[in-house]
């Protein structure tokens, strides 16, 4: 009997339990009277069904994790296992080969010893599967029977069921914490392994990034200087992209909130938001195939040296466009939060609309706008596909926007998508870069949210 059919069986049992307990509770309701029963019939049904399903399901999950080890132990005690090689590695190779034949994942054995173990494996698997299925069914029946005897007129089935639902809700909300812990733990753990091989200072302050040469075996200690990556990330995400996104986003927000007619505003806002909804891989393709060649031809025509077909400018420009709706909606919010009285006061003094905006609204909304820009920067430096496709791989420390630079996210992708063993510093470096990225974006977000919050409170 395989696992899926056991699952179906206990779910079927739970359904039967639900129906029969509900029927019994309905009878009780009829004989004792509606007001004499504490819970409605379907709560009794749910109570019995849960008692049937949950203990059995929990046991089954545990069993499915434990039984492979039990099966292996049983096989090792079989007479055929006496001839197994002594060292652990070839032993486990033979065992896993025999297992995959026995479970039908493989057709024939490469190793004759495995073939001999197939029969013991098969019988052990069948034996433990049957034991597991029988125990599960006993648990389901026992749970169901116990709960069924408790179906009485005054039994508080609803309270019990609701307590379980509440527990489920709490459990679900803890997943967010578990995920955060998982991210921090996996980044810290792998980074710690990286920093046990490479000095953290030479990683953070070194200026030479060449993990390829480190993989070949010479000079690993000085091949992981991440400064060119940090510079590339800042150059593209925080300088070029923001030079595009801040003026355009701010002016879009000002025009749409202060000048545009409602009909124009109603149409233009969703259109701008489409810009944020286009997948980044599409932007990346666009940057690499359309924008980058245009910029390179321009640079060559003007006579700028070092022009490359993968340029910081192409990636930064397109990333800036992607960020426009983000900046615009943050600016929109903060301008709207400026009290009407300030605007009215300025207009009443005879200032024109643009003077009111430039001298009153923007200064008053500045903290909110700055917070929005910080959030935009944190999004820009974490953006991956545009820079992977358009920014290039050369770790240059240059301020020439037409040259190729590389970023933290590009290198993470580059380091982890080759065929590398998982213990090399080259692969682990990706996690160290990820840790830096995580910390920086986290700090930017905390600071930005604090600034925005403080500013909101000032006018409330």
């Amino acid at each position: 009997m395989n696992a899926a059919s056991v699952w179906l069986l206990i779910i079927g049992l739970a359904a039967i339990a639900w129906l029969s307990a509900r029927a019994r509770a309905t009878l009780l309701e009829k004989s004792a009277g509606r007001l004499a029963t504490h819970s409605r019939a379907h709560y009794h049904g749910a109570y019995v069904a849960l008692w049937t399903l949950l203990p059995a399901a929990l046991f089954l999950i545990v069993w499915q994790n434990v039984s492979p080890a039990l099966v292996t132990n049983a096989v090792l005690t079989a007479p055929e296992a006496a001839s197994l090689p002594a060292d652990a590695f070839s032993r486990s190779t033979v065992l896993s080969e025999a297992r995959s034949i026995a479970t039908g994942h493989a057709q024939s054995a490469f190793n004759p010893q495995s073939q001999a173990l197939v029969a013991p494996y098969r019988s052990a698997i069948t034996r433990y599967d049957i034991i597991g299925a029988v125990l599960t069914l006993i648990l389901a029946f026992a749970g169901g029977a116990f709960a069924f005897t408790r179906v009485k007129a005054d039994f508080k089935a609803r309270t019990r069921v609701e307590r379980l639902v509440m527990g489920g809700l709490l459990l679900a909300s803890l997943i967010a914490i578990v995920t955060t812990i998982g991210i921090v733990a996996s980044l810290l753990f792998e980074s710690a392994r990286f920093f046990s091989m490479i000095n953290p200072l030479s990683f953070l302050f070194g200026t030479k990034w060449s993990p390829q040469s480190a993989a070949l075996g010479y000079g690993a200690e000085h091949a992981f200087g991440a400064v060119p990556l940090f510079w590339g990330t800042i150059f593209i995400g925080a300088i070029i992209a923001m030079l595009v996104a801040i003026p355009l986003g701010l002016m879009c927000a000002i025009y749409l909130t202060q000048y545009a007619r409602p009909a124009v505003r109603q149409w233009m806002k969703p259109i701008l938001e489409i810009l944020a909804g286009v997948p980044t891989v599409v932007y990346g393709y666009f940057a690499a195939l359309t924008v980058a060649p245009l910029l390179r031809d321009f640079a060559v025509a003007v006579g700028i040296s070092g022009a490359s077909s993968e340029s910081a400018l192409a990636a930064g420009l397109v990333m800036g466009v992607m960020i426009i709706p983000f900046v615009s909606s943050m600016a929109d919010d903060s301008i709207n939060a400026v009290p009407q009285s300030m605007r009215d006061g300025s207009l009443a003094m005879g200032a024109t609309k643009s003077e009111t905006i430039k001298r009153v609204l923007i200064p008053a909304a500045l903290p909110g706008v700055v917070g929005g820009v910080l959030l935009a920067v944190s999004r820009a430096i974490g953006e991956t596909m545009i820079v992977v496709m358009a920014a290039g791989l050369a770790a240059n420390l240059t301020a020439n926007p037409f040259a190729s630079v590389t970023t933290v996210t590009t290198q993470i992708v580059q380091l982890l998508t080759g065929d590398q063993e998982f213990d090399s510093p080259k692969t682990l470096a990706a996690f160290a870069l990820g840790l830096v990225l995580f910390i920086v974006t986290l700090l930017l977000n905390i600071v930005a949210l604090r600034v925005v919050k403080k500013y909101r409170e000032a006018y409330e």
Partner: protein
Amino acid sequence: MSHDRTPTDWSSPVMRQRIARRYAAERRFRLMGLGAVTLSAGFLLFLLVTMLSGGLTGFLRTDIALPINFPASPVMLEPAMLKGPNAQQALANANLPAVTTAAARATYGDKGEELLSDSAWVAVRDALLKDPSLLERSAVIPVPAASDIDLAHKREGTAEAEATVARLTEKGALSSTFNLDFLTMSDGTDPTQVGIWGALKGSLLTMAVTLLLSFPIGVMTAIYLEEYAGRNRWTDLIEVSINNLAAVPSIIFGLLGLAVFLNAWMLPRSAAIVGGLTLALMTMPVIVIAGRNAVKAVPPSIRDAALGVGASPIQVVFHHVLPLAMPGILTGTIIGMARALGETAPLLMIGMRAFIATPPGGVTDPATVLPVQIFLWSDEVSRGFVEKTSAAIIVLLVFLLAMNGIAIYLRNKFETRW
């Protein structure tokens, strides 16, 4: 004021000039705003037009008319063999590639088969299946052209291919048809024979896993935080983690998936289930935040009324608040799913960039997804892939637009103003 001053003479030339200057600045500022909006919208238009003009031809296929004289050809088939259950087997034994090559040489000269796609014989097979009586006469069958001919016919190709196309066009041998294969086939090495079905199916499987995990967990978290949680340290911790998760770069989720799902839990590489799990962690905060806003928007009077007639707190939420908040939650969920559908970077981390030539059969089979397929094709050297990449982008954008359209429709139709 301690001293007298003359009132401002607003009609003096100096003041007039000054006011004119201020009004000009006002107009300039307004124009700048209009320019910013136009520029942003223009960029979107430029992007879409580039993709459409580059990609629409990707849905077309160039066919070459190939006359085959079946009775004279070395094909070992009788019309009777093509009726009944053994037709596929009979066709597989008939050595149609050789027949096709021979026919191409007979019509288009010594290297005639190079004009045709490697899969040209498949078109011959399908034609025979459709009409077995072709075997008794000679017939002209349109078969797909080779990649360079295809390119030269649709847009510009190499000089050599252009010359061949001109020659073929003169004969009237070229025609364009809708390339159904692009929607039904998977990744391949020949750009005339690739399709997006494999990637699309991978995307659908991944999205199914993501939705099944993130929607219940997200909605339950939102309900718990908004309706039941007391103000304490744990609640604050949950809130802070959700807000942080919403702001973590997507590639970090890929690192988590690699370290936990692949290396610690030993789940299969490049499988839809791992992709779905990773994207579910990413989508969950979006659903939680949207769900909380939707639950918050339900007025307290509803809760008070339900409590007043004797509902338990759980009944209040599940019978009254949740149904009223559902449109808002669904809108947020669709937007989160649309973002997950377009996501590429975390899936590269968990190995979904493998070359997958067969559509995945289940969530544990190696799979790729549409955005990753776009990324892989954009890296191909062969020029035929350029239009296929744009065509795949068009399909992806159509899906995203449809999802966002549904979200906006839901919001407008079911949104209640209390």
